[in-house]
């Protein structure tokens, strides 16, 4: 029974990774770069959520308290996190993508947005450290420790709600990408950026949309993380993103459904391997498998969309 | 002792079911200046790509100086004495003029000793002197350290020819060397190629400028839709009905005018 309990815990943990993995895979699929602002946004949203709930925002705490009261400050936290992250995403888009063209194309050109995104990661981590310090920050969960059990298996209510919520969000997103006009434009850019411009897709206006979507995914995921696990710090994004990247690779780069399955699977794998072989050894099978996958089957387990065509 | 430096026999190539090169055979005589012409999309550049090993051929054979190179990998083909320039300038933008030319020498310097020889640290080494001389002989005197991306188009075009030359080829493949050049530059290019040819190097050139072809070449091969439709002297080519039809049949009026 303990094994099943571990599987359930893993699935819950996977729920956190899913949205971050989808965010990574969207940016890689559309814009072909590994966006390290994703961990920054996840972490920043989680910290904002903590700060709003605990009244430690740099300003506006009293206003929030007057409007929402102590009991419903978590709603204010969600609003603050989503709005701030959406705005920040627009700023990041300007500096990581819009100006990123080397004078003469060459083999390391694709690294430019990667490098500026690392710059943003450093900015945000130190912004949080200098405002809230580098110690772990613990918030009080607004939902307490609600649990129910089926047989001997214990389920945490907030975790179930989060898992369902994240799955609904990403599934809706992927349906939207399939069906809508925006989705078609995005896929056109992903396939051939030059041709997309000719076909009347305004790349300059679509790319910020991609950034805001991925930013919001990170924000929701970060908010849910704070509610469920209550303890956050300036570096929580790095840990989560590392595993989410693994999930994304597993599902195939640029493949949204792959990232969903990969994210859930990697969460379960992490918990199971910690349970079976111990936390320290868990890294070896996970990353060893990914290394093999990247080298021998770069499309991932389900993938067909191999990005990095042409010069890359 | 063969008189043909290049022999192409029954060459076929398809891309995704589309026949791009269909049973093309022709020979290039040693010391000749042969032109490969044809309307747009006839497969001229593809022939070059097949010769230099960018793509493998589906069927047929390629023989250079009596040596069958059909299965030789791309990086080794330059060592059998075949070197090329490109339709769009493909110089290395971050390398200087001299360094680009020294890259052309690579085929002659593949031994470990040559690979580990410090070209940049010793300013007066033989490789560098040879490269600078080749540039000077071609009439390209610039700062040897100048990064090529900053040079004028016509100069870059000629540097490409020089880079191909320094690998010491027996056969020089030039893909539209005169495209985009003005009258003066075309003249300088022609002069350079004539000098190269006088040194005994065989030239196979793809070119749209028919005046240039008539002035330079002594033999012409015509492709259309991946097939060879004619080979002969420049005098004969204008009288050949198949060639006239190929050019007049296309929408490209300027080419038709050029050909007739």
């Amino acid at each position, binding site marked *: 029974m303990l094994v099943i309990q571990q599987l359930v815990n893993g699935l819950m943990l996977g729920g956190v990774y899913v949205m971050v993995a989808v965010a990574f895979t969207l940016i890689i699929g559309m814009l072909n770069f590994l966006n390290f602002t994703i961990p920054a946004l996840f972490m920043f949203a989680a910290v904002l959520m903590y700060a709003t709930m605990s009244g430690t925002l740099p300003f506006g705490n009293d206003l929030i308290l007057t409007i929402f009261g102590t009991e419903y400050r978590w709603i204010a936290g969600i609003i603050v996190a989503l709005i701030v992250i959406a705005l920040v995403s627009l700023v990041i888009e300007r500096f990581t993508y819009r100006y990123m063209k080397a004078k003469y194309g060459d083999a390391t050109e694709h690294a430019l947005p990667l490098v500026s995104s690392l710059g943003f990661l450093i900015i945000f981590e*130190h912004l949080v450290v200098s405002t809230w310090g580098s110690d772990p920050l613990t918030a009080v969960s607004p939902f307490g420790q609600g649990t129910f059990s089926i047989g001997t298996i214990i389920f945490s209510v907030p975790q179930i709600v989060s898992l369902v919520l994240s799955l609904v969000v990403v599934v809706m997103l992927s349906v939207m990408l399939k069906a809508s006009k925006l989705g078609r434009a995005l896929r056109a850019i992903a396939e051939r950026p030059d041709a997309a411009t000719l076909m009347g897709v305004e790349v300059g206006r679509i790319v910020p949309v991609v950034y805001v979507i991925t930013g919001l995914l990170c924000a929701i995921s970060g908010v849910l993380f704070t509610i469920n696990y209550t303890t956050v710090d300036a570096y929580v994004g790095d840990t989560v993103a590392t595993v989410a990247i693994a999930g994304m690779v597993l599902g195939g780069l640029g493949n949204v459904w792959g990232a969903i399955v990969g994210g859930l699977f990697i969460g379960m794998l992490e918990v199971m391997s910690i349970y079976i072989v111990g936390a320290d050894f868990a890294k070896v099978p996970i990353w060893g498998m990914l290394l093999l996958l990247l080298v021998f089957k770069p499309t991932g387990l389900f993938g067909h969309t191999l990005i990095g065509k042409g010069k890359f | 002792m063969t008189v043909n430096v290049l022999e192409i026999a029954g060459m076929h190539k398809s891309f995704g079911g589309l026949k791009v090169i269909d049973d093309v055979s022709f020979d290039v005589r040693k010391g000749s200046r042969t032109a490969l012409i044809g309307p747009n999309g006839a497969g001229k550049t593809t022939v070059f790509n097949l010769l230099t090993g960018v793509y493998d051929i589906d069927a047929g054979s390629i023989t250079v100086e009596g040596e069958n190179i059909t299965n030789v990998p791309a990086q080794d083909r330059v060592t059998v004495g075949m070197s090329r320039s490109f339709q769009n300038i493909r110089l290395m933008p971050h390398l200087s003029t001299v360094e680009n030319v020294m890259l052309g020498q690579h085929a002659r310097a593949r031994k470990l000793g040559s690979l580990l020889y410090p070209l940049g640290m010793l300013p007066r080494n033989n490789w560098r002197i040879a490269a600078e001389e080749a540039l000077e002989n071609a*009439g390209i005197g610039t700062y040897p350290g100048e990064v090529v991306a900053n040079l004028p188009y016509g*100069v870059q075009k000629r540097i490409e020819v020089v880079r191909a030359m320094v690998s010491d080829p027996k056969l020089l493949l030039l893909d539209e060397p005169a495209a985009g050049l003005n009258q003066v530059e075309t003249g300088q290019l022609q002069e350079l190629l004539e000098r190269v040819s006088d040194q005994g190097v065989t030239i196979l050139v793809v070119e749209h400028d028919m005046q240039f072809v008539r002035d330079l070449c002594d033999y012409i091969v015509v492709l259309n839709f991946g097939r060879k439709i004619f080979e002969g002297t420049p005098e004969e080519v204008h009288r050949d009905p198949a060639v006239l039809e190929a050019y007049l049949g296309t929408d490209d009026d300027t080419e038709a005018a050029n050909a007739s």
Partner: protein
Amino acid sequence: MSGYLESQLIILCLATIYAYGIFLPAASGQLNLGAAGFITLGAYASAWFNASTGAELPVWLSVILAMMFTGTIAFVISFPILRTRGVYMVLATFAFAEVVAGIVINVEELGAAAGMPVDAHLDVTVIVPMTILVILFSFYFMSTRLGLALRSIHDDENVATLFGVNVRTAKVVAFTVGAMLMSLGGSLYGHHYNYIEAQTFNVLLSIYILLYVLMGGTQTAWGPLIGAAFFTIVPEALREIAESAGLTWLAEGRFMMFGAFIVLLMVFRPEGVMTRTLQDRLGGGLFRRKKQVLDETAANS
């Protein structure tokens, strides 16, 4: 030399050695985010060869053997890893470093998660000359025909192939030699601080080293030196200034300034600080020989 300056110099030297290890493959356009993996291998291998519980070899031999050990592993994995390109290579090297960290942390002989004490001590009088040697070697390496081939691959792999460059071999050599340099850096780290922990060599280290190289510029061998020097000296200098002037905002904000600088550098100078053109301009009278006669075309157009 004061103890403080000496400790900063050591940090700078190690960063420089690591940076050249990442630079060599980067010069041919291969991005390696696995620096931590090779540094770990070097540090632990040399510590084990040297340790009384291990092979009990003299320190110089341990360092060399560690380089050969790391080089062998790098050589073997370079074949599969160099099949990947672009973002796949970044991820594959990153995965490799995670695997190394995961293995080391589980080997009892290497101290597992508690870390491993290192016997022999190497001080600044060894580390500085070794760093200078690495720099000179890298300049030599990039000036050879092999270096020229690597720079050509960076610009246009297909054309380089057509001129006879064996692209695969060149990449494997750059990757392997780079890994050996990082191994050297890792060994020196271990023997200087006399204690190593796998957690020290984490992904953040890999990221920073890659940043040094890309910030400094991959076009010339000056790049890694400038990148490593700039990014180790400036934050430290800012801290010093902030402390002496009592500016708390600067002490806390210097890393944010560092991040902002990275972002702005990528906007305004994506090739990195040092480019080929800049090197020529600075080298001016020293390296450029007589201006040859400009031909008419160049002058006219």
